[in-house]
């Protein structure tokens, strides 16, 4: 599905110039604390360019993207470029670190699970055969060569957006020393505090009430990522099935929090921490507390 080609727009918001566009299926913005519209436009374009580059490079919908080529290789060894190699290395380390809970080969479960807010929970007989197609340990990864067994596929969706935030911020930072905030649909990073050392204010969206603020956060550096189920869930017989699927069972993680927001040095780290926390289900808060993570859960 091609991304909608909504025009980007530049506007003034308080002390900032905001460059807004649509990419990776979410509203994106690049915020610069400046009056200079030309600078903001330049920064915004760089941010948008990076977002679109990563989106098309790692899109699983495009047969010509890197991920598309890997998935359609039917067992052949494919050589990947350095950037993809580093991402796959990172995914591999996260797989080990999470004892298999974070697995980029779990995307095949999409064929059984469609999280559209309805009550169409799949039959176990549709989920069971997919389990054989999941498992990073089955993938042959010898950088820079990768080969997937037949029927398996990789999906970098759980990484790409956060990585794009970090990359886009770096691109913006190379253009200006002014305070910057890059926000792709709730995953965001800042270049540092605002002028005079004032923190950026970020509202945590309420899970249930549209437009409501569940909390307010002050950020002076680093990044934030939120993992949540606001629109993507199934509900049947009073049980809520979150869209976070446990790759080891093929079924949603039980009793996951409705939303986890994590702050860390980078958006990639924050995003992974949030995903790992959600995968702990009812033990999400204990996991975050034990790890000393800066996080906030909404149940």
């Amino acid at each position, binding site marked *: 599905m091609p991304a909608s080609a909504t025009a980007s727009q530049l506007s003034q918001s*308080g002390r900032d110039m905001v460059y807004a566009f649509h990419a990776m299926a979410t509203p994106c913005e690049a915020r610069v604390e400046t009056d200079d519209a030309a600078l903001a436009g330049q920064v915004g374009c760089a941010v948008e360019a990076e977002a679109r580059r990563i989106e098309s490079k790692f899109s699983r919908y495009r047969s010509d993207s890197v991920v598309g080529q890997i998935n359609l290789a039917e067992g052949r060894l494919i050589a990947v470029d*350095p*950037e993809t190699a*580093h*991402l796959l*290395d*990172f995914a591999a*380390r*996260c797989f080990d*670190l*999470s004892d298999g809970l974070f697995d980029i080969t779990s995307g095949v479960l999409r064929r059984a699970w469609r999280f559209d807010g309805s009550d169409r929970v799949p039959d176990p007989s549709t989920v069971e055969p997919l389990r054989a197609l999941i498992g990073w340990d089955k993938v042959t990864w010898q950088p820079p060569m990768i080969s997937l067994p037949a029927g398996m596929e990789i999906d970098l969706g759980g990484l790409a957006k956060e*990585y794009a935030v*970090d*990359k886009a911020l*770096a691109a913006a930072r190379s253009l200006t020393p002014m305070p910057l905030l890059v926000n792709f649909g709730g995953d965001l990073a800042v270049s540092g505090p605002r002028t005079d050392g004032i*923190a950026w204010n970020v509202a*945590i969206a309420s899970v249930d009430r549209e*437009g*409501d*603020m*569940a*909390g*307010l*956060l*002050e*950020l*002076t*550096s*680093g*990044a934030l990522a939120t993992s949540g189920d606001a629109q993507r869930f199934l509900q049947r017989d009073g049980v809520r099935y979150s869209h976070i699927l446990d790759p080891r069972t093929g079924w949603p993680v039980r009793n996951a929090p409705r939303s986890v927001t994590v*702050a*860390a*040095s*980078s958006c*990639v*780290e924050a995003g*992974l*921490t949030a995903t*790992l926390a959600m995968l702990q289900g009812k033990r999400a808060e204990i*996991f*975050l*507390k*034990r*790890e*000393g*993570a*800066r*996080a*906030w859960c909404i149940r």
Partner: protein
Amino acid sequence: MQLKKRKKAGRVRRTLSAASATLLVATGTAAAQDYYGYGLEKRNDNFGPGIAYTQMDSALLVYQESGGRVQATEPSLNLAVHGATGEQLTVDLIADAVSGATPNGAVPSDRIQTFLTPLKAQGSSTTVTSASGGSTIIQLPPTPGQIAAAAQGRQYTTAANTLPMDKGFRDHRAGLTLGWSQPIGPISDVGISGGYSLETDYQSITAGLRTAQNFNSDNTTVSLALNSEFDTSSPFGGIPTPLTAMNAQWKTVTSRNKTQLGFVLGLTEVVTRNWLMQLNYSYDAQSGYETDPYRVISVVDAVSGEPTSTLYESRPGKRQSQSVYWENKFEFGPSLTDISIRYFKDSWHVTSKTAELSERINLGRSMYVEPNVRWYQQSAADFFQNYLVGGQTLPAYASSDPRLSKFTGLTYGAKVGFPLSARTEIYLRGGYYQQTGNGHPATAIGQLKTQDLFAGNKSVFGLFGFQWKFH
């Protein structure tokens, strides 16, 4: 945001942090030495929606009127416990000790005047004198028809050309108010409150209900508050019959009640990023004993203006009032401007206008100053009279209470505050409040032409406060 305090990173986080650093450094996104310096607020100093915290305010008000008049000391405490999902519990405690002289309502005369009141404690044989040459105990002649005759009374005198004041005035009060509010279902806020206040001669019970709804991404709030009050006045000496002669007898009616019901309809709007506005309409209806049982009004000779007798005042038993209040707060850089106006009107024909301006100027991060000025103007109640004229028919209602007269009040104040941290603040506020009115009305008779008939006050007050927030 209730973020967990920074602790040692666990195994997963350390590994993840290292893996992320590797990824970002390798892809040219970040420089290695930049990676580990992240700062979410240095301390957990977030207080606001979604955070559970408690705020405690304590303050001490000291108030002094000029000319040896009322002096009050009032410590107060307010505790507000905020839950993470919008619940709030408030506890308010207040105490005050008031003493000093207060005008009794009679007019000044070019001759010495004496006034008789019941003794403070019925049957007591203690003398009630105050340091500034107060009262004496006198023996009263028996009066036919009186029940529970007090054979002793209290008498005090006022020098010539001086505003008559009762100097033996001393009172203590304590009050407690409790409130609870929380969101219920789709309603943003529903609250209930109740209070009780007790002083030696007065008791007040209050109850309130409030509901509010947020719209427009919480930029607009509409609220409705219903409030009610039931007061019992039990003055020393009992409730006097209105417009009868002031005397030292202990009155047969010992207490009277007053009921009040009202509502406040409010609209709060965050207009822009730095402009907040509030607009309130209030309506109030009171019924019962409105009279001040200690106040009197002089009856003067129609020619000479000499007071010939003193009568207890009388006010109507009902009072309805309405007011509109509009407040705006603007924040620009280091300064915050707060400007408000109020228009008030009631069924006693009192109308008033109030305008208040304060400007808070932050001097760095640990100090601010806030000068403020308030202008107030009210018209007289329709039954307000400085005095009654002998020989004329007594009106149904009459009071010489300066609080019901036509006057202008100006307050000049300044506040200095020291935020000691993001959690605590101390502040000191001082002010000067002056009421001015026409003390020489054109209609003054005889000796009253030479007297200043305006009994409003000038006062100085100071407020010392301490505010503390904690999780």
